[in-house]
């Protein structure tokens, strides 16, 4: 109800959403013991590997860790533009 009111009045986002988002990221970092820089590096490497096989839309690619029930999952969404035609490595 209050959220609806906020939307109608076009108020700025409530700060609790910031708190929640920051917490979710924090808890993942705490749990996997990786720094944000290491996570970025991992994302870079994963994307690089994918790019060896398919041409992707890098700007709209997401690779991130997400906390679900009792476990952390690697969530990735990588739009493929086209498959690179080349023989598999011997």
């Amino acid at each position, binding site marked *: 109800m*209050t959220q609806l009111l906020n939307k109608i009045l076009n108020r700025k986002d409530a700060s*609790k*959403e910031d*708190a929640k988002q920051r917490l*979710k990221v*924090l*808890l993942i970092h*705490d749990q996997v013991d990786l720094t944000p820089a290491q996570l970025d590096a991992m994302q870079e490497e994963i994307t690089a590997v994918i790019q060896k096989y398919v041409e992707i839309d890098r700007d709209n690619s997401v690779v991130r860790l997400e906390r679900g029930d009792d476990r952390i999952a690697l969530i990735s969404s990588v739009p493929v533009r086209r498959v690179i035609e080349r023989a598999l490595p011997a």
Partner: protein
Amino acid sequence: MSECIVVTSGKGGVGKTTCSANLGVALAMQGATVAVVDADIGLRNLDVILGLENRIVYDLVHVIEGECRLKQALIRDKRVEGLYLLPAAQTRDKNAVTPQQMRELVTKLKDEFDYVLVDCPAGIEQGFKNAVAGADRAVIVTTPEVSAIRDADRIIGMVEAAELPEPNLIINRYRSKMVSKGDMMNKEDILEILAIPLLGIVPDHEDIIISANRGVPAVFDETSVVGEAFRRIGRRINGEPNVPELDFSEGNGIWGTMKRWMGFGTAQGVA
């Protein structure tokens, strides 16, 4: 059957000692025999919150080192039947006690009392390990803040690592006005993140500061909304099913004040 419950949080200053004191009084008022144990060796405070600081002769370390008998160190709270405090030592440090010694102490206390409530020190080191050593289960205290919830998450992991059953959560310092504006995480937000069962919510209220000034826990005050929150948590710990959550949105503002004047303020619950 008696039970040892450790009250813990990870982060300091979220209200562990206040919760321990009030829950101790609440359970005793409901007819149970209760020993509240201050496990914060070197920084004792539970005695002050309970207003029993002038009656300390012996402490937990004296008992463990055999300088006195357990009964000599237990301070009886004269305001309510069945409530005793075992104070921490103020001039020693956490390394004066081992988890094994705490386990033995708690076992002895459980022979005498229905509930043993252990007020855990902040942090995740020796003091925490001592405090959880003899516990059958844990209650995690948090506030609706990023830092407190982060530490609570860490502590939940450590409680599970100590092979205790899934802990319960107390959300302290809840400000319903800020929650309704969207400027404080609400109950659902916090439970979504921490994913443990809720034991109760305690509103942020000036009664807590006043009661700490006086050394009289808020739960002694029949008209206090915070006291009522702790009484309900006590009933849940005691195994009473379906104790409704307190509707403390009425606690602030003109409507809340009017409702309190008209005499149906604190007793109302929401389904």
